[in-house]
């Protein structure tokens, strides 16, 4: 299959600078899991400070530098750095590379029967722009100014005045270029490298979700890149794109900026990206859940066409709703009504997707395997996340709830108990395809129940704290009188956060142990019908020995005139006996 048959590739060519989409997928997988762990440990430091303000950190308090955490107590500047980096790492370095980079890179070519991505070398370049971008982002902690500390949204003028943002912006430009190249690669592969017979409407839902996500990445990221260039110019060359006239910083007139800029311009450009970005966070996990639910209910998913149309509609609308993040930021009030209506319209495809996934359970024979448990948990949890979005999307109630802990509860329910749980499901589901071995089931179930309980323990109290009016990003919540009543809830969240960290140990151990000494499986342990399970696992270079020909849709389970309850896409015809 591969066009360049040359001498046996050296170790680096096979594993480090590899152009094989499977190796690049695994590189993305391990790197994004490491970043997720890093981002999560940052939030543990923050949670300690929120629950017990001013008390020194046990054990590791002394390890932190004196400037960041004097006497083991986290200082406000370090707290803001942790907050900004937690958001950036989890979104740009954790969930998106896991959902799009790892699962997309590895599974998409297999599911459409392609030998590799359309541009293997550009695919490698995507990873080798992502990794330096991530390391640059992390290294900003060690630089003199410290890491970025104006939130992951980096609103000017604060982000232009504060130290640490320049490295953040440079790292963002690297990550954006990596995502851009990746999305071009995905679109061209999906359109031009499908196995014969695999028409667009026979592609699995996971491939559709990656396809729509790739368009979101392609068209939404460049505006943030331009906005980041403008902010970089503001910081380094003292232009004043975002700096209005007559700024008085620290008591003096900030004369290095001549003024004339608009701070709200950044918010428009940032959220123009950030809202499609949150749909990039949720679409691939929804695709994973559709695959796993269909496989474990042993019947075709409900409404294949509705799901695909809902995903397309979601992708289109995601470009038109961005300013519901700016209802109280001084945006024109007439425009708020427009964005109110578009936000209400975009909630319909989310409900449609959830309805189709839940109705897929009706009439199935549900197998409660570990991936299925995670996929099933995704449905109610994402339901809570979606429902709590309603009061935030409504202009009036958003006046009170904007920038409170209610918002933090909302988007963590969507991203953590939504996307992350679905990505765990995908890991358990495709692990046998990646390594030819199965992850241990009991450890998986322990990890599932512990993670689900702990996650709810962290985020459920946040709704109550938010309704009491506690603002987000507060270094010390007890400084505001109206937050004192919510302090015990912070303790509950913090304890649950530490419990959640404990429950990640089973999956880390399980992941690396099963890689070498897990129970070996054949090429199709879950009896799945999609093409990725019709090739050996782990698939060799070039994936399919013989180019598969596709005869039917992706989810032909329990076909009436076929002997076993799954009929692969590339099987010639149903065999009755």
């Amino acid at each position, binding site marked *: 299959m591969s066009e360049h048959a040359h001498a046996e590739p050296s170790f680096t060519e096979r594993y480090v600078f590899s152009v094989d989409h499977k190796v690049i997928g695994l590189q993305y997988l391990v790197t994004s899991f490491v970043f997720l762990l890093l981002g999560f440990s940052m939030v543990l430091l923050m949670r300690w400070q929120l629950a017990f303000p001013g008390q020194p950190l046990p054990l590791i308090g002394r390890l932190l530098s004196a400037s960041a955490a004097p006497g083991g107590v986290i200082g406000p500047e370090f707290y803001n750095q942790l907050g900004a980096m937690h958001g950036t790492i989890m979104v740009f370095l954790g969930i998106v590379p896991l959902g799009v980079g790892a699962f997309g890179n590895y599974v998409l070519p297999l599911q459409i029967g392609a030998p590799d991505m359309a541009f293997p070398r550009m695919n490698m370049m995507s990873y080798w722009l992502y990794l330096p971008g991530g390391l640059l982002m992390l290294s900003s902690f060690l630089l003199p100014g410290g890491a970025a500390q104006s939130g992951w949204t980096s609103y000017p003028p604060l982000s232009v005045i504060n130290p640490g943002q320049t490295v953040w912006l440079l790292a963002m430009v690297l990550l954006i270029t990596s995502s851009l190249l990746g999305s071009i690669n995905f679109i061209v592969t999906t*359109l031009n490298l499908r196995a014969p017979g695999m028409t667009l409407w026979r592609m699995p839902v996971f491939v559709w979700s990656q396809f729509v996500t790739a*368009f979101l990445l392609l*068209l*939404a990221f460049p*505006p943030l890149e331009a906005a980041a260039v403008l902010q970089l110019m503001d910081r380094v060359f003292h232009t004043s794109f975002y700096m*209005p*006239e*007559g700024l008085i910083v620290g008591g003096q*007139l900030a*004369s290095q900026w001549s003024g004339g800029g*608009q701070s*709200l*311009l950044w918010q*428009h*450009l940032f959220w*123009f990206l950030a809202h499609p970005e949150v749909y990039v966070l949720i679409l691939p996990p929804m695709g994973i859940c559709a695959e796993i639910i269909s496989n474990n209910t042993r019947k075709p998913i409900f409404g294949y066409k509705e799901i695909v149309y809902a995903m397309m509609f979601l992708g*289109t609308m995601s*470009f*038109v709703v961005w*300013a519901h993040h700016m209802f109280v930021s*001084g*945006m*024109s*009030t*007439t*425009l708020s009504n*427009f964005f109110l209506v578009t936000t209400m319209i975009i909630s319909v495809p989310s409900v449609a997707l959830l309805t189709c996934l839940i109705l897929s359970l009706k009439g199935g024979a549900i197998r409660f395997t570990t991936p299925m448990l995670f996929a099933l948990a995704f449905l109610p949890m994402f339901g809570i996340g979606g429902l709590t979005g309603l009061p935030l999307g409504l202009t009036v109630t958003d006046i009170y709830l904007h920038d409170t802990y209610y918002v933090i509860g909302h988007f963590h329910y969507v991203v953590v108990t939504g996307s992350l749980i679905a990505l765990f499901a995908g890991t358990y589901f495709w692990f046998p395809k990646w390594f030819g071995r199965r992850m241990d089931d009991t450890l998986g179930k322990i990890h599932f129940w512990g993670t689900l309980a702990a996650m709810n323990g962290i985020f459920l109290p946040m709704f109550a704290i938010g309704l009491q009016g506690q603002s987000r990003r507060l270094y010390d919540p007890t400084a505001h009188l109206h937050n004192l009543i919510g302090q015990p809830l912070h303790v509950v969240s913090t304890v649950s956060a530490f419990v959640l960290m404990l429950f990640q140990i089973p999956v880390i151990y399980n992941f690396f142990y099963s890689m070498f000494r897990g129970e070996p499986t054949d090429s199709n342990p879950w009896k799945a019908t999609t093409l990725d399970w019709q090739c050996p696992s782990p698939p060799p270079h070039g994936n399919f020995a013989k180019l598969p020909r596709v005869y039917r849709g992706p989810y032909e389970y329990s076909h009436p005139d076929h002997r076993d309850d799954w009929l692969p896409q590339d099987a010639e015809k149903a065999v009755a006996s």
Partner: protein
Amino acid sequence: MSDHADAKSHEKLYWMVGGALFVLTIATVLVSKYHIPHPWNYVVGIAIAVLKASLVVSIFMHLKWESRLIYYVLGITAFFAVFLFVLPIVDFSWTTGQIIHRADPAGHEAVEHH
């Protein structure tokens, strides 16, 4: 892509389009030199630019003979670009009313925004 038979006619077409672009550039410069009343100079300027751009896109970039898929890609991009343009401008047309035009730090009063 264009096969070799009518390559000659294509080359002639390229030179003609090049000439047209030259003329339009001169036109747009002259138009802005001899002032046109306020709203119309924008309209004419943008119209000439759009005309030049459409010439380049359709002939030079072979879009006229391109497959429909490329039209879909450009259609989607145009749809989202319109929102990128229209909404911030609509917002700032209102926000400008709220801007505080401080006296210029050098002391003289900033011109009041009409």
